[in-house]
């Protein structure tokens, strides 16, 4: 089976390996090394999609990253990817692909009706209509527009592929392996620099693969191959193909995406699909080349209109003819290379050159080959709907305003060249301001901002000789700075054809009476008339033009359209291009897979999971876990068919009646050491700390400087100059940073050190009336009586030979202790507690029971200390020292904080003693008041009191201290509840605090 448009003897594809693939359900074949685009063109297919707005037929325009049209849906290994660029996606066996944005098919697309109505849809038309009736925008118009827009269809399935990240440091990063990239990388590598050379395409060599030049008596390609094979052997060089450096960030950090498996039917085992490289480069040489820009003419979006350079690439790399009757339309010499290439392969092109009488070596060569060249000629419009069938051409006057007689010539493709635009994206991203180069009608990098330099075509240098010379020099220069070596490379002899000056002509005028659409942005259907309209309506800044018309906002980000848009604006506004200015280049240079940006931090690994040493025991004992920050904590231990409510009630009740044990490892723990530790704590906490004896613990509250409670916890004096501070699980990291801030910055004179010990200690809280009996059995040789270890006492002992710290502190309000052992003994401790506790009917309890116990005792926690409350609000005013200063004290005298009717924590009981009050309800006087209904406070925490067997809640209530005994409504409109409640003291159980001291 031969392919009609494939040539036999030319190209870099592997003809030994045929690859079959499907396009829109039909089977085709190509060769290894083809892209979807080259394989389809080889099969004579040019219609691949439909445009965004008018649904006009779309073919292939480029041959790489600049492609504005050929966006397809890709199917690979049971998954589908939307918006795949057919000019970049390499063929693999079994590849399937479909056209997007068309229905029912790309050949017959209903949406194309838009094209016939296009005069009603100029730029910004949607701002002017769809306003009546009011509700129709959201209900009718918008859904319709949404459906019509978008390209591919995203799968809602989880991505099965793996993406990895790599961090790399190098002396020199070279972005692009064309002549400038190869020369500079080679020179630098020879000087001993650690070089990374990145090439977006599968093949190294860039323009050397397609241009007809001679370097050191070899063809460009041969020279490139030689350099590449040498670089490959050098240990200080990393060569990466299929790798796009897409972003140039601060401090010379560049990011590159490497496509490792995209060209394979499926990713190999242990191999990611893509790898994202964060590269910190000492120096960067930007050798990203240039992109050919089109000349704008009528119906220039018709399939079969291609860039002349792309036509050449299809020929020389893929052995594919974009057409057999090519019309070449150019304003410069480079398209002649395409013409000559056609001719060499037996195809007779016609060249239309906008210039009057150019003279150069290459034009003469074309002439001598007998190629039909017509100077001062332009294409007025392409003819044909789904494929170019002919072109209307005419002679154009010297001032480029008047057209001669229109002639129709038959052709099957139009290869267009409007000269070259340097790819300055990376330089611009790095902060380089860029400047306009009149000679080439394009922007080039100006003074570097970071350690970067732009070479070759990317810097507006379009001759190979100068490119190689300057690139070798630059490679030597930057590497010399780093390696201090000087290994001069002699620049090879170059022979290339000298080019004549290009014509500063980029847009063909419309003949009288013709209304052909002349497109600037092919994907977004932005035509010359759209830009004219925007300017007419006062959208004159280039950013306004871009936003109003969507010029340059398609997935190709305006690579082929931006400069022509600028030219148009400047010519209408009668300004020079640089004064119009270009829109900002932002990363990424080309769209990057989001999965690759994210890497391995997906699913369970999206955030770290921290587990206590006893986690495994909890799992085995049917714990249901809850996230507490990044920690997992047992919420309750399920027995039989219990749910959360029953289980937590049982566990809490058992604490009140017998004894329970709770894993408190997650609490933040900080060692505070040094002769000034007491003084430091005295400044950090609101209460007094100077007189705490060794072997005693104290509860403390710390504030932010704005007076808001930051955290609370107990701190124990372990020895003279050593304190053990505990924080809440959530605030542990913040508190440590806070302490370090004050020690290092505010009070450096204090001789104190702090260090986190959270992970060094495993903790178990043993709570309940029988806790002392249990403790005695755990520590038979230690006096743990009320006298030996009083409330807020501390001692150290051995738990069956294991060093243990015992704190007599209580969060549950019961007689309670907290035992800490070194983390690796945590399981041992836990096992012993459970084993020996059996005789006292011990049960483990989770955070839910813990919460119940603290709520009915009126102990405040995270839901009250919510970053908005002061000590008074939490009933902690007794802990606020009047005598000494501390962090945040000065803020407590603000008006709002000292108001008579300031909010305060209270207890709330439903009057019916049955109805649980949803957390997050608000307290109001009148349940039926009109909205907005004034809110007096909110329910911060609710539980089922196991002591009284009825619901109980805590609330932060305005004028709380005077509200005890009042009846209010707890309203939860979200749950459709309005509950009559009575305000009571927050200390619902054991208000005098006798149990903890018993």
């Amino acid at each position, binding site marked *: 089976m031969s392919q009609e448009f494939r040539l036999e003897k030319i190209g870099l594809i592997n003809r030994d390996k045929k690859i079959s693939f499907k396009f829109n359900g039909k089977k085709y074949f190509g060769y290894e090394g083809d892209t979807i685009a080259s394989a389809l063109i080889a099969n004579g297919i040019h219609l691949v999609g439909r445009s965004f707005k008018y649904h006009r037929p779309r073919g292939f325009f480029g041959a790489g990253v600049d492609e504005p049209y050929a966006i397809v849906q890709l199917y690979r290994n049971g998954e589908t990817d939307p918006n795949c660029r057919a000019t970049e996606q390499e063929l693999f066996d079994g590849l399937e692909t479909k056209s997007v944005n068309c229905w029912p098919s790309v050949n017959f697309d209903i949406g194309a009706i838009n094209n016939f109505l296009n005069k009603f849809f100029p730029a910004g038309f949607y701002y002017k209509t769809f306003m009546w009736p009011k509700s129709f925008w959201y209900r009718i118009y918008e859904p319709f527009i949404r459906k019509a827009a978008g390209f591919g269809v995203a799968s809602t399935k989880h991505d099965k592929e793996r993406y990895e990240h790599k*961090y790399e440091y190098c002396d020199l990063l070279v972005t692009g392996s064309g002549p400038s990239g190869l020369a500079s990388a080679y020179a630098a590598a020879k000087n001993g620099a650690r070089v990374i050379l990145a090439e977006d395409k599968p093949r190294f060599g860039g323009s050397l693969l397609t241009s007809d030049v001679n370097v050191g008596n070899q063809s460009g390609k041969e020279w490139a191959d030689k350099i590449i094979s040498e670089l490959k052997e050098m240990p200080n060089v990393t060569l990466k193909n299929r790798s796009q450096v897409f972003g140039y*960030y*601060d*401090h*010379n*950090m560049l990011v590159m995406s490497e496509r490792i498996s995209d060209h394979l039917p499926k990713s190999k085992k242990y191999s990611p699909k893509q790898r994202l490289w*964060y590269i*910190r480069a000492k120096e960067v040489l930007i050798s990203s080349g240039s992109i050919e820009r089109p000349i704008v003419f009528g119906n220039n979006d018709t399939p079969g209109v291609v860039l002349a350079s792309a036509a050449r690439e299809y020929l020389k790399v893929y052995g594919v003819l974009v057409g057999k009757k090519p019309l070449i339309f150019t304003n410069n010499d480079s398209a002649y290379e395409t013409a000559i290439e056609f001719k060499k392969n037996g195809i007779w092109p016609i060249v239309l050159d906008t210039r009057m009488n150019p003279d150069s070596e290459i034009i003469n060569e074309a002439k001598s080959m007998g190629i039909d060249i017509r100077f001062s000629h332009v294409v007025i419009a392409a003819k044909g709907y789904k494929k170019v069938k002919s072109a209307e051409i005419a002679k154009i006057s010297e001032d480029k305003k008047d057209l001669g007689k229109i002639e129709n010539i038959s052709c099957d493709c139009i290869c267009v060249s409007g000269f070259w635009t340097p790819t300055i994206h990376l330089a611009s991203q790095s*902060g380089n301001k860029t400047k306009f180069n009149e000679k080439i009608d394009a922007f080039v990098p100006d003074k570097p*901002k970071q350690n970067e330099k732009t070479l070759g075509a990317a810097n507006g240098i379009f001759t190979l000789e100068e490119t190689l010379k300057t690139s070798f020099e630059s490679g030597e220069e930057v590497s010399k700075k780093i390696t201090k070596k000087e290994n001069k490379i002699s620049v090879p002899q170059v022979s290339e054809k000298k080019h004549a000056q290009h014509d500063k002509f980029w847009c063909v005028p419309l003949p009288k009476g013709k209304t052909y659409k002349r497109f600037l942005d092919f994907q977004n259907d932005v035509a010359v008339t759209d830009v004219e309209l925007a300017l007419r309506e006062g959208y004159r800044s280039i950013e306004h033009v871009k936003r109003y018309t969507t010029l340059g906002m398609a997935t190709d980000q305006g690579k082929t359209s931006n400069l022509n848009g600028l030219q148009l604006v400047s010519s209408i506004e009668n300004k020079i291009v640089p004064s119009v200015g270009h829109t900002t280049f932002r990363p990424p240079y080309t769209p990057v897979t989001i999965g690759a940006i994210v890497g391995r931090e997906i699913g369970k690994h999206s955030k770290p999971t921290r587990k206590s040493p006893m986690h495994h025991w909890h799992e085995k004992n049917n714990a249901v876990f809850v996230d507490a920050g990044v920690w997992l904590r047992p919420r309750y231990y399920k027995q039989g068919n219990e749910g959360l409510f029953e289980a937590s009630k049982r566990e809490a009740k058992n604490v009140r009646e017998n004894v329970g044990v709770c894993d408190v490892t997650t609490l933040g723990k900080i060692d505070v050491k040094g002769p000034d530790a007491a003084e430091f704590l005295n*400044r950090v906490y609101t209460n007094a700390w100077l007189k705490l004896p060794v072997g005693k613990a104290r509860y403390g509250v710390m504030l932010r*400087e*704005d007076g808001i409670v930051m955290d609370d916890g107990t701190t124990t004096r372990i020895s003279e100059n050593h304190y053990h501070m505990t924080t809440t699980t959530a605030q542990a990291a913040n508190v440590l*940073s806070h302490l*370090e*801030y004050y020690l*290092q*910055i*505010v009070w*450096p004179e204090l001789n104190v050190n702090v260090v986190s010990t959270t992970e060094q200690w495993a903790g178990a809280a043993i709570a309940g009336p029988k806790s002392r009996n249990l403790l005695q059995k755990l520590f038979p040789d230690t006096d743990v009586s009320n006298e030996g270890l009083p409330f807020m006492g501390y001692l150290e002992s051995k738990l069956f030979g294991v060093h243990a710290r015992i704190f007599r502190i209580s969060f549950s309000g019961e007689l309670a202790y907290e035992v800490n052992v070194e983390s690796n003994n945590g399981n041992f401790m836990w096992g012993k507690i459970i084993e020996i506790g059996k005789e006292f009917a011990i049960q483990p309890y989770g955070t839910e029971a813990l919460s119940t116990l603290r709520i009915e005792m009126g102990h405040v926690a995270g839901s009250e200390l919510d970053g908005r409350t002061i000590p008074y609000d939490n009933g902690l005013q007794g802990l606020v020292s009047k005598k*000494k*200063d*501390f962090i945040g004290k*000065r*803020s407590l005298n603000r008006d709002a904080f000292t108001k008579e009717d300031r909010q305060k924590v209270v207890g709330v009981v439903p009057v019916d003693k049955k109805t649980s009050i949803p957390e997050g309800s608000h307290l109001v006087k009148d349940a039926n008041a009109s909205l907005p209904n004034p809110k007096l406070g909110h329910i911060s925490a609710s539980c089922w009191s196991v002591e009284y067997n009825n619901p109980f809640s805590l609330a932060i209530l305005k004028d709380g201290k005077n509200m005890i005994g009042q009846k209010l409504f707890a309203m939860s409109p979200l749950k459709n509840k309005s509950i009559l409640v009575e305000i009571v003291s927050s200390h619902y159980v054991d208000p005098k605090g006798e149990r903890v001291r018993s």
Partner: protein
Amino acid sequence: MLYIKCPYCGMRSQNEFAYGGDATVKRPELNKEVSDKEWDTFVYLRKSPRGKHLELWHHVSGCRQWFKAQRDTVTHEIFKTAEIKEDI
């Protein structure tokens, strides 16, 4: 990603650090009478210039030292970093 020189550890990538804001904020001394205005200035007012900014960074995933940096808030160029006790 910024590349920051910790005065104690050397060049490290930004993800090892936490930002600490304006380094010129000075906490009033303890036990000293301060006016409401002085106090509010300390708690709520920060320098936020366009250009050179003296700021604090904290090497949280490293030596856990706070230090000063002078950075340009437009270009992100870091001119100098220094220990807290040093002047920039």
